[in-house]
C-alpha cells in the first residue's frame, strides 16, 4: 500500500478521456455516420425456422425507384463465416433459423429499403424443425447441417483429471443435480450498426463496432476473397459490446457487398427488434453435475456434463466450454475432475460470446452445488469454501499456475460485510410472508490475458512531441470500459507526465499496431504492458538527451511531473518539452517514438485442455442479502457486497464502475432476464418484455478492492472487466436458497419460478 504514494497516475480516479465527448453528444457512433451518397441497407430474414429455399425473386424490388442494390446468395462468394465455417452470409439453398439472412437491399432511405424487402418473393419448402437440444440429439431428429451427424457440433470439449470414479466411491457425501440456464442478451444500448465504403481503387473501409479489428480484417478479406491489405477498419465510438462484437457476422459482410454493388456507401443499422432476434446470445445450458466430499469438507470430485444449445450456426458460442471448464476444474481445490459437453445444433438463433464467456454458467452451477454440498455435510457454506480455497502458487488440474491469489481475503471480507455469522441461518427460522437470507459465491477467471489464439499479443507505439505531449497508439479497442484512460495512466506513469497529457489513438487499423481484440478481461493487462514497455523505451531516449543537457548520467536522472531532474538535485529541473525541442532543433536530431509488442509468457492449452493460458488469475467473491416475498415469489436484493482481487487498481473509479456494471448484468441474469424462445421465435424482442434491470432493480453495492500487486501485471494490475458478472447469479441463488430453505435449479429466478418452488415445498410439508 505504501508504494501507492510514489505514483502520480496509478491509483488515481482520472475521468474517462472520452467522457466529455459523450456527455455533450459529440461522440460519433456508427449509426451517426453520414457520408456523401450514403444508402441504407436492410436484411430480409427467413420466414421459416427450417426450410429449403426454392426460389428468390427480386425482380419487383429492383424496379422500385430509390433501390440501388438488391443481393441474394448468388451475389456472394461461396465462402462461409464462423469458427466452423458453416454460416453463409446470405443463405442460398436452405434456412436453418428465423434469423437467417435471405436477401438484402440498399436504398436511398430506410422506407424505400423496407418497401423493397416486402417486394422480394421467396418460395420455401418447409422442413421439420427441432428446437430442443435434447430432442435434436435423438436418433431420427431433423438434420440441420448434413455434415453434423446427430446435430452434434464437431467441437467437443472433454477434460479428465485424477480418478473420478475412485473418488466418488471414497466420498462420504455425494450430491447430483440438473440445472437449466436461459438464453440472455447483451442489450447494448446502441443497436448494431456498421457502414461500408469502397473507394475507386477497390479499397474497402468499414466503420464497425467490432471488438476484434484485425481478426475482422482478416476474416472479411477471406470471405470477400480479397487481400486484407485492401480493407481498413475504423472503429467509431462503440455503444456497448460485452462480447457481442467478437466475431465477424453476416450483417457486416452484407453491408460491404451491398455497398460494392451499389457503388455507394451503405449504412446498415439494426432495429431493437432485430438486435434481440438476430444478434448472437448467451447460450442456454443444461448441466448435469455431481460433486462429492469427505466428512471434513475436503472436496473429492466433480463430474459434469453440459449440453449447449448452439443454435443453427457456429460462432463463438460453441467454444464457451473452453472457459466454462475453468470454474469446474479450478474454482476451489478439487483433484478429480471429469468434464464433458455436447454442443448441439438446433433451429434456434445461434449463440455467441458474452461477458464471462461461459463462466457465469459454470460458476452458477459449481457455486450452487457448493452450498448444496455444505448443507448435506452439515457444514457452514463459508467454511467449506475456506477449507478448499485456492492459494498463491497453486497449480490447478488444468495446469493454471496461480501466482497471486486473494480469494481467502475476498471470502472473509464478504462474509464479514454480510454479517454472515448472524444472518446465514436466520431466514429459514423466520415465519411470515417475507423471508431473508444471505449467500455468497466466488469465481476464478483469467486475469493476465488468455491465450486462445497462437498470439495473445498487443502492439503499442508511444510518441512524445515537442511540448511534452504524448500520443499512445494502441492496438487495443475502447468499448466503453475505460481502457483508453487506464492505458493513458500507465503510459503517463512510465514517462513521468500526467494522464491528461496523453492522447490515445485506438480506432483505425491503418494506424494502430496489431492486437487480438478486446475480450477475456485482457486489455489493461496486455495492452497495459505493451504501452508501458513502449513508454519505457521513449523514456530512455528522453533521459539520454536530458543527460547531455543536465550533464548528469542517465541513471542519476528522474522524470516526474513533466520534468527531468537529477535525483540528488530535484530543484534543477528541465521540462520534458524542452528536452524534446532541443533534440528536434539540432543537427542529427531525433524523434521520440518507440514501439513494443507484448505477448505474454503463457501457453496454449494442449488437446487435453491443459496449459497455463494466463499470466495470472483473477479471484473474487460476491455476497447477497435478499428478501423473498413468499406469496408473490418476488425476490428483492437488499444488498450486494463485492470483494475482488484486482492486483492493483490503476483507476479505482473506473474499476468500481466495471464491477458495478458487471453486477447489474449478473442481477439481471439471476432474477429477470430471459429471451422467451418458442419454436425458434423470440417472443419478447423489446426492452419492455425482456427485463434488463432498471435503476430501481439495483441494490446498494459495497465494493472492497483487494490489491495483491501481481508481479506480471502493469503496476501489479489484473484484468477484471468480466468478473462483476460471473458470480452474481450464484450468490443471489444461494441467498434465495438460504431464505427459503429450498433449492432452485434454473435461472432467472423470476417470481413465478420462485412461487412454484415455495408452493411445492408447502405441499410436501402438508
Amino acid at each position: 500500500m505504501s508504494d501507492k504514494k510514489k505514483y502520480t497516475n496509478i491509483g488515481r480516479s482520472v475521468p474517462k478521456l472520452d467522457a466529455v465527448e459523450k456527455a455533450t453528444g459529440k461522440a460519433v457512433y456508427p449509426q451517426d455516420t453520414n457520408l456523401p451518397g450514403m444508402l441504407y441497407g436492410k436484411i430480409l430474414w427467413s420466414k421459416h425456422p427450417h426450410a429449403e429455399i426454392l426460389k428468390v425473386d427480386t425482380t419487383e424490388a429492383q424496379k422500385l425507384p430509390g433501390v440501388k442494390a438488391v443481393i441474394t446468395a448468388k451475389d456472394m462468394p461461396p465462402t462461409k463465416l464462423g469458427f466452423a465455417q458453416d454460416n453463409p452470409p446470405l443463405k442460398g439453398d436452405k434456412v436453418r433459423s428465423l434469423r437467417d439472412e435471405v436477401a438484402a437491399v440498399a436504398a436511398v432511405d430506410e422506407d424505400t429499403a423496407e418497401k423493397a424487402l416486402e417486394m422480394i418473393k421467396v418460395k420455401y419448402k418447409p422442413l421439420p424443425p427441432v428446437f430442443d437440444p435434447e430432442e435434436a440429439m435423438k436418433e431420427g431428429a431433423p438434420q440441420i447441417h448434413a455434415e453434423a451427424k446427430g446435430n452434434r457440433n464437431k467441437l467437443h470439449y472433454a477434460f479428465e483429471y485424477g480418478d473420478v470414479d475412485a473418488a466418488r466411491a471414497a466420498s462420504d457425501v455425494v450430491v447430483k443435480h440438473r440445472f437449466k440456464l436461459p438464453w440472455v442478451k447483451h442489450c447494448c444500448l446502441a443497436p448494431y450498426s456498421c457502414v461500408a465504403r469502397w473507394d475507386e481503387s477497390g479499397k474497402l473501409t468499414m466503420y464497425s463496432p467490432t471488438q476484434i479489428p484485425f481478426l475482422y480484417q482478416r476474416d472479411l478479406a477471406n470471405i470477400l476473397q480479397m487481400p486484407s491489405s485492401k480493407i481498413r477498419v475504423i472503429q467509431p465510438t462503440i455503444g456497448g459490446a460485452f462480447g457481442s462484437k467478437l466475431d465477424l457476422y453476416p450483417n457486416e459482410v452484407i453491408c460491404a457487398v451491398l455497398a460494392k454493388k451499389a457503388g455507394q456507401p451503405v449504412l446498415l443499422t439494426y432495429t431493437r427488434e432485430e438486435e434481440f432476434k438476430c444478434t448472437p446470445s448467451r447460450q442456454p445450458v443444461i448441466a448435469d453435475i455431481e460433486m462429492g466430499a469427505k466428512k471434513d469438507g475436503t472436496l473429492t470430485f466433480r463430474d459434469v456434463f453440459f449440453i449447449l444449445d448452439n443454435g443453427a450456426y457456429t460462432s463463438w458460442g460453441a467454444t464457451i466450454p473452453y472457459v466454462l471448464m475453468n470454474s469446474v476444474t479450478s474454482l476451489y481445490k478439487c483433484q478429480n475432475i471429469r468434464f464433458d459437453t455436447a454442443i448441439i445444433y438446433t433451429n434456434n438463433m445461434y449463440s455467441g460470446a458474452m461477458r464471462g464467456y461461459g463462466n457465469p454458467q459454470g460458476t452458477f452451477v459449481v457455486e450452487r452445488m457448493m452450498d448444496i454440498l455444505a448443507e448435506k455435510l452439515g457444514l457452514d457454506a463459508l467454511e467449506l469454501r475456506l477449507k478448499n480455497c485456492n492459494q498463491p502458487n497453486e497449480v490447478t488440474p488444468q495446469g493454471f499456475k496461480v501466482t497471486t491469489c486473494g480469494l481467502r481475503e475476498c471470502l472473509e471480507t464478504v462474509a464479514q460485510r454480510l454479517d454472515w455469522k448472524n444472518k446465514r441461518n436466520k431466514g429459514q427460522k423466520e415465519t411470515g410472508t417475507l423471508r431473508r437470507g444471505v449467500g455468497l459465491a466466488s469465481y476464478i477467471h483469467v486475469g493476465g490475458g488468455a491465450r486462445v489464439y497462437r498470439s495473445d499479443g498487443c502492439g503499442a507505439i508511444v510518441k512524445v512531441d515537442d511540448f511534452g505531449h504524448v500520443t499512445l497508439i494502441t492496438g487495443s479497442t475502447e468499448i466503453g470500459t475505460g481502457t483508453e484512460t487506464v492505458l493513458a495512466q500507465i503510459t503517463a506513469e512510465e514517462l513521468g507526465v500526467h494522464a491528461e497529457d496523453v492522447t490515445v489513438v485506438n480506432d483505425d487499423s491503418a494506424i494502430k499496431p496489431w492486437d487480438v481484440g478486446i475480450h477475456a478481461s485482457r486489455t489493461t493487462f496486455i495492452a497495459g504492458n505493451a504501452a508501458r514497455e513502449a513508454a519505457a523505451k521513449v523514456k530512455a531516449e528522453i533521459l539520454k538527451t536530458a543527460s547531455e543537457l543536465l550533464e548528469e548520467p542517465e541513471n542519476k536522472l528522474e522524470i516526474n511531473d513533466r520534468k527531468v531532474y537529477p535525483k540528488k538535485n530535484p530543484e534543477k529541473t528541465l521540462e520534458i518539452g524542452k528536452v524534446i525541442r532541443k533534440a528536434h532543433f539540432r543537427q542529427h536530431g531525433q524523434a521520440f517514438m518507440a514501439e513494443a509488442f507484448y505477448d505474454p509468457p503463457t501457453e496454449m492449452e494442449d488437446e487435453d485442455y491443459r496449459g497455463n493460458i494466463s499470466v495470472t488469475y483473477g479471484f473474487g467473491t460476491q455476497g447477497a442479502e435478499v428478501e423473498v416475498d413468499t406469496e408473490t415469489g418476488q425476490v428483492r436484493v437488499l444488498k450486494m457486497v463485492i470483494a475482488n482481487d484486482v492486483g492493483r487498481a490503476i483507476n479505482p473509479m473506473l474499476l468500481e464502475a466495471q464491477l458495478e456494471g458487471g453486477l447489474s448484468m449478473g442481477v439481471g441474469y439471476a432474477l429477470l432476464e430471459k429471451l422467451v424462445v418458442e419454436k425458434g421465435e423470440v417472443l419478447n424482442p423489446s426492452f419492455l418484455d425482456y427485463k434488463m434491470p432498471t435503476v430501481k432493480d439495483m441494490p446498494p453495492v459495497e465494493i472492497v478492492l483487494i490489491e495483491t500487486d501481481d508481479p506480471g501485471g502493469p503496476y501489479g494490475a489484473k484484468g477484471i472487466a468480466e468478473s462483476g458478472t460471473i458470480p452474481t447469479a450464484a450468490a443471489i441463488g444461494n441467498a434465495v436458497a438460504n431464505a427459503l430453505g429450498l433449492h432452485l435449479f434454473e435461472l432467472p429466478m423470476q417470481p413465478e419460478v420462485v412461487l412454484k418452488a415455495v408452493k411445492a415445498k408447502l405441499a410436501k410439508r402438508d
Partner: protein
Amino acid sequence: MMKHRLNLRVNKQDFEVFVKPKTTLVDLLRDELGLTGTNKGCGTGECGACTVLMNGNAVNSCLVLAVEADGAEITTIEGLASEGRLDPLQQAFVDEGAIQCGFCTPGMILVAKDFLEKNPQLREEDYKTAISGNLCRCTGYVKIVKAIKKVAEGE
C-alpha cells in the same frame, strides 16, 4: 405523401423544416438537423436514450411526431453546454465516472435536468425515479445516481 412545414426552436436556434407526418422527432433531429447526440436505442419509448426537453419537459423523442413539435422549444444534449462550459450535470457525469459506452448518457442527463428543475427537494429514491425510464447496460446506475445527487445537493 404531403410534407408539412413546421417551425421549431432547437437549442435556441430557429428552424423551418418540411417533414412527412410519420417522421418522428428523433429522426428529424438526427437526420435533418444533424443532432446525433440524441441516440436512438429502441424507437418505442422503452429505453430513454432519445430523451430531449420539449417545452421544458423531458420526453422520448421517438414518441413524438415531428409535426407535433411545430412551435415547440427543444433542447438536445448539444444545447446544454454554454460558452464552452459544461452544464453541472454533464460535468458531474464526467467527474463521477457515470459514463461508459455513453449511448444512454445524453438521455440520462436530460431527464435528470428536467427532474431537478421541477423538484427542488429530492430524496435518494427520487434520483432513481428520475432515471427509471432510462436503461443503462454499462454502469449498473450507481455512478449515475451519484452524479445526479452531487448536482442536486450542490456539492
